[in-house]
């Protein structure tokens, strides 16, 4: 019944539309069919294509800030210009930066589209395959979720979900848990390796990393810019415990590079760095945050 009502309503409005057209039949100009009508016929979205992936299989470490990247290749198998749409299905809990995309696909070589893949920090190791489809073309990309290191030397922050109060252009919160201590901005197919806040001259700024599971923590290392003029000066380190947020260390008057804070062991599931002041630079810069047990 709802469908019938819809149709009835449409009929009425179409009639109204025609009515105004009829009026002009009495006017000066006749209504003539258009000469150059509109949208051209193009190749179908499902033009035959060849799908490829590079690498052909992927390893991914658990952690929402530890993406692995697959380059999905699409090549047209017809001479004409093709713009196929590709869909990627991933099993739970795999998350993709794109689940579908449309691209120009040349005939001579594949168009490559990077797709980032992450899994939550507590994802069990195992096989999780992606299936890629465009029209009749199909491709499976085997994905192995690896074990996360867990010994006493393990940095429990590494690769784990990280958020910030604001994020500066060409930087990313995930840049502080990527194992890279440099200050390198986003580039071509290259994620940023550090974080800066997006509110120049305004402090404090916050950066928070959520561990895969609660862990014993007795040492937190914060790396900032290697040059004093860009380095963070004052910050607090807090851990999230069953009792809530607890400040475990305060660093003051730091000049460059980074500092280690040690404190009595705490069982925590997240670490928060509160940036309070720099050595003059308008933005707080953190290049890495590490958390270790005793």
């Amino acid at each position, binding site marked *: 019944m709802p*469908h019938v009502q*819809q149709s009835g309503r*449409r009929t009425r*409005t*179409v009639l*109204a*539309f025609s*009515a*105004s*057209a009829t*009026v*002009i039949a009495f*006017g000066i100009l006749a209504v*003539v*069919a*258009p*000469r*150059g*009508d*509109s*949208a*051209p016929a*193009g*190749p*179908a*979205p*499902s033009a035959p294509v060849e799908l490829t992936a590079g690498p052909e299989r992927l390893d991914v470490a658990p952690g*929402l800030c530890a993406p692995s990247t697959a380059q999905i290749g699409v090549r047209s198998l017809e001479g004409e*210009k093709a*713009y196929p*749409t590709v*869909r*990627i299905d991933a099993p*739970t*809990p*795999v*998350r*993709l*930066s794109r*689940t*579908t*995309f*449309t*691209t*120009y696909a*040349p005939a001579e070589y594949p*168009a*490559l*589209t990077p797709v980032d893949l992450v899994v939550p920090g507590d994802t069990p190791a195992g096989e999780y395959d992606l299936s890629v*489809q*465009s*029209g*009749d073309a199909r491709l499976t990309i085997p994905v192995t979720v690896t074990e996360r290191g867990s010994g006493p030397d393990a940095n429990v922050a590494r690769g784990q979900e990280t958020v910030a109060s604001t*994020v500066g*252009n060409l930087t990313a919160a995930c840049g502080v848990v990527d194992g890279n201590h440099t200050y390198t901005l*986003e*580039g*071509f197919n290259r994620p940023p390796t550090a974080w800066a806040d*997006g*509110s120049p001259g305004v402090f404090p700024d916050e950066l928070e990393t959520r561990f895969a599971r609660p862990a014993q923590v007795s040492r937190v290392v914060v790396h900032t810019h290697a040059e004093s003029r860009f380095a963070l000066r004052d910050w607090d380190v807090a851990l999230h415990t069953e009792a809530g947020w607890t400040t475990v260390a305060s660093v003051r008057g730091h000049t460059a590079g980074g500092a280690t804070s040690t404190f009595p062991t705490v069982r925590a599931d997240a670490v928060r760095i509160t940036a309070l002041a720099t050595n003059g630079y308008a933005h707080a810069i953190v290049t890495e945050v590490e958390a270790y047990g005793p």
Partner: protein
Amino acid sequence: MTPDDTVEPRPTQSQLLAARWGRRRFLTVSGAAAALALGGSLAAADTSPQRARLPYPFTLGVASGDPLADGVVLWTRLAPDPLAMFGGMDGRLSVPVEWEVAEDEAFRRVVRRGTALARPEFAYAVHVDVRGLRPSAHYFYRFRAGDHLSQPGRTKTAPARDVPASSMRFAFVSCQHRVVGYYTAYQHLTGEDLDVVLHLGDYIYEGADQGSLGRGHFPERTLLTLDDYRARYAQYKTDPDLQAAHAAFPWIVTMDDHEVLSNWASDYSYYYPQEAQDAFVVRRANAFRAYWEHMPLRLAQLPAGPDMPLHRRFDYGGLARFNVLDTRQYRSDQANGDGIKPPSDESRDPNRTMLGDTQEQWLLDGLAGSGATWNVLAQQVFFSQLDLNVADDKESYEMDAWDGYEASRDRIVDFVQDRGIGNPVVLTGDVHANNACEIKADFDDPDSATIGTEFVGTSISSSGDGRDTDPGRDALASQLPHIPYYNVQRGYVRCELTPQLWRTDFKVLSYVSRPGSPLRTDATFYVESGRPGLRPA
């Protein structure tokens, strides 16, 4: 239309964007995207539930463009969920869209109507090339899809070629980086009485930046795929001020670099050599396709893969000829590694080209055969020499502008001078600043003849609020006698032409970092026909 029409309330821009905004960057496939039906055969015309259930689809407004004496292109795109794949349409079935053109705002005197198919392969964009209209005439147009009627647009045809037009008014605009500013300039522009609006490029920006105004880019990545570019155009086009300006006048558009990637040149990426030419050509093809889909362009401009014939010509009676140029697609790679550099053998290589041989010859032919009073080059980058080195005895030039393509510029200047081309006027965008320039027969000799005029228009929003003057630029003034005026605020440029006189008004805003700035005329210049050079008001 009549009051009893079933037209659902139009969602606001913030409602349209809010749903998407909350989403995480990583989507699970169980999200809305998974519901997309892909593949399947093309375009059985809709018969179907999609049409009956279609939510309000005219979220991106309407537009008209490329006016001729007997016709104009009408544009819209069905996008009930503008930032989603295929704008929230199913990506599989085409949908008929009715259109009509009337002489009056109430649509009582309809003179043309028809039905166009909105096809998934063009992201449900509709381009109707309406012909058989009268010259120099205002028309109103609108679309209907499913139960929904679009907002009306107003357009105007060009004058007939053989009738001497007594006057025309147009505005030119460029550079509308939405992240850093509001489109207040378009509010003011919409209130003007104009025949046409020229957009000289940087309609979108390609980056992932979010800024601090709540106008951050979607998707939050540097654009690469066709759906990336489509979503970015859709996001820009949800802006009500931009929609109103499109609905008020026909536009003639050309692209600059940010419609693809900053400072691209032919098949060279900004990221070259990290991004190889093969890979960049795919990005360029995606960018071109989305550009065509979202602009009121004719089929003649439809790109075939990475190639788009964008340069074209418009005549306004015998009064003005607009040569609309493409200074990106065919140019030599920037010399000296791009940036601001001293000239070199490389930048002065006579084989370098800004337009490519074919377009250059087309331009020269179009100038020679014009017969129009005013011969306009509507283009992107700074044409006149602009020495950016404060030291009197040193030179530094923007390698991306015509200064980096001196031989190409010289060929045009020499041609204009040798053939006595009447009243050449160059219109420019790109630099987010207003400038009025006198084009010299030899820029290195201030005493050489002035052979034409260049008006450089500031940005709609790019670079943010800006300021009236700039200390660095003031310091350059003494060595730039051929550029007597500049300003670095936001706005647009309005021009009024008669057979005797060209008038240019530089319209600027006090700010764009918040809505509502008043507009003022910062400067007015005249050019007298037959007397190249600027005459201040």
